[in-house]
């Protein structure tokens, strides 16, 4: 593999490894130094300020500034909670799984620092039910850290208590939506809440709650240990700082997780230099950058830099940085139908436009792909999408229309060919 860049990973510091890094190994490599530093030398406010100065933005998809989120938590007494979003279910996303399976203590140290910063004593790791191996590993890591006196009651011989509980889901993408996650933790159907109140005011058990993604929290130990100045040297200040794990999948020779500073490479460089190019030397038809939840980037946008602002300027979103590569032989209608099948399956059913709309969008896409499309179908897809997007309580409904709208607009001739010829011109899967 050609490494285009001299970069020392910060999050996945053991590339290629599949076994968990033990507590002893983690500490030998400088682990929990940030936790010691925070407890011995920093106030909770200073931790929040350092994370703000670092410019860390949420790595789960929305990109919200993490320090600001922590700063919203009221200082008033009473219970506060941290909920760690490990429900990773976006198609094409497999970074939190590797972080938890291989670097469990880095994740735990980040959680502990977040607890300290907002004065919470209890954190829940909400992990998707299918990640059994990852959940087992992080539970074992918690036990090790508690036994060593690093976490638990009286962390590192201070008065600070941090109790981390692993909560296993049971198969529902919607639980990655932060208020649905809270509903699930409270033992109810995971259907998103209407906001306000926001979780920082009324979250878990109606108490102030911070909800952060696994990768977001895994960034925090390095920020506290090495400082926001160092962190700002990775990527570009102020809005695209720090490392990001790029999940590369689809028609590339070497799919995998690649950690790089934000904006360090373009989509093309990630595919060619890290993914070792497209299978069979084919050309790229399009690349999804945020799993199936944002518009597809067409082949003329491959020189877009991989950071939040550049991908947005190119007409999509970096999101969780889950890049799915579609080659010239991929039928775009079939791909869109498959993405819509996902949303139809995962819509929680609370908002009628999403529940009904995803189902109809899927059926129309499917009939076009199967050679039964009608001449007005493309306009129908666009108008139906307009009836879903923006008319629902959570982002799932908006995400669900983007594969449709973007592909109809950008690959319209391919859709029309399906309808005109009443067949799919591409090879079967």
């Amino acid at each position, binding site marked *: 593999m050609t490494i285009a860049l001299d970069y020392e990973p910060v999050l996945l510091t053991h590339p290629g490894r599949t076994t968990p890094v033990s507590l002893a190994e983690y500490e030998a490599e400088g682990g929990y130094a940030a936790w010691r530093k925070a407890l011995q030398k920093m106030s909770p406010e200073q931790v929040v300020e350092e994370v703000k100065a670092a410019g860390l933005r949420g790595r789960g998809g929305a990109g919200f500034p993490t320090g600001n989120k922590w700063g919203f938590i009221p200082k008033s007494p009473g*219970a506060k909670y941290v909920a760690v979003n490990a429900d*990773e*279910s*976006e*198609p*094409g*996303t*497999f970074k*939190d*799984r590797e972080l938890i399976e291989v670097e469990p203590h880095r994740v735990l140290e980040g959680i502990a620092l977040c607890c300290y910063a907002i004065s919470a004593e*209890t954190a829940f790791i909400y992990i*998707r*039910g*299918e*990640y*059994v*191996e990852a959940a087992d590993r992080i539970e074992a890591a918690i036990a090790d850290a508690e036994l060593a006196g690093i976490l638990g009651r009286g962390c590192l011989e201070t008065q600070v208590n941090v109790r981390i*509980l692993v*909560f*296993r*889901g*049971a*198969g*529902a*993408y919607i639980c990655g939506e932060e208020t649905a996650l809270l509903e*699930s*933790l*409270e*033992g*109810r*159907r*995971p259907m998103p809440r209407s906001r306000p109140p926001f979780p920082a005011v009324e979250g878990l*058990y109606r108490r102030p709650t911070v909800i952060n993604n696994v990768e977001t929290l895994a960034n925090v130990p390095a920020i506290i240990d090495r400082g926001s100045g160092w962190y700002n040297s990775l990527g570009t200040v102020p809005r695209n700082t720090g490392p990001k794990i790029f*999940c*590369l*999948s*689809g*028609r590339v020779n070497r*799919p*995998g*997780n690649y950690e790089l500073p934000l904006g360090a490479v373009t989509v093309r460089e990630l595919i060619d230099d890290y993914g070792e190019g497209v299978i069979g030397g084919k050309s790229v038809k399009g690349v*999804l950058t945020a*799993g*199936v939840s944002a518009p597809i980037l067409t082949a003329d946008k491959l020189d877009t830099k991989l950071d939040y602002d550049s991908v947005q300027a190119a007409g999509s979103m970096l999101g969780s940085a*889950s890049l*799915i*590569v*579609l*080659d010239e032989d*991929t039928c775009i209608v079939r*791909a869109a139908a*498959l*993405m819509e*099948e*996902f949303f*139809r*399956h*995962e819509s929680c059913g609370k908002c009628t436009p999403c529940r009904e709309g995803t189902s109809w969008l899927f059926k129309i896409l499917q009939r076009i792909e199967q050679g039964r499309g009608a001449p007005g179908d493309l306009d129908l897809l666009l108008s139906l999408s307009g009836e879903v997007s923006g008319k629902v309580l959570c982002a799932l409904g908006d995400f669900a229309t983007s594969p449709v709208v973007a592909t109809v607009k950008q690959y319209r001739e391919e859709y029309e060919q399906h309808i005109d010829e009443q067949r799919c011109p591409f090879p*079967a*899967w």
Partner: protein
Amino acid sequence: MPLSNATCEAIRKLVDAYPERRTALLPALKLAQGDVGYLPSETVVETADLVGVPHSAAFELVTFYTMLRQEPPAKHMVVVCAQLPCALRGAEALLRELHDGLRQEIADGYVDVERTSECFGACHRAPMARLGDEYRENLTGPAVSQLIQELRRA
């Protein structure tokens, strides 16, 4: 079939482990399913009573989450991800091979091969399947024949 004493004890412990008892409901249902194999109505009711929540609260979850089952499962449950990253790397071919290779076992209800549009976070090792709770990844070539051999009745 009533829950075993060990499961009842584990569920009672769960109720005490969380700030509010209803948080224990989902993990309790999963324990109950692990014990009985699935969640028939009487098991759901028994679990709700142990957690101390209305029966409707428990049915609300059982009828929502895909990992909770109201019907008894086949001896071996194979779930193949057919979402885009896997589809781009041969998920449909994998499904065909499994259906062909396990025709008798599927007809007998011994093996269940299911296609899902859900993603399991193994896109870099696609195509993949879940065999029970286990991940089976990079399922191409000899790995598929091996899986089929493993699932054939001895």
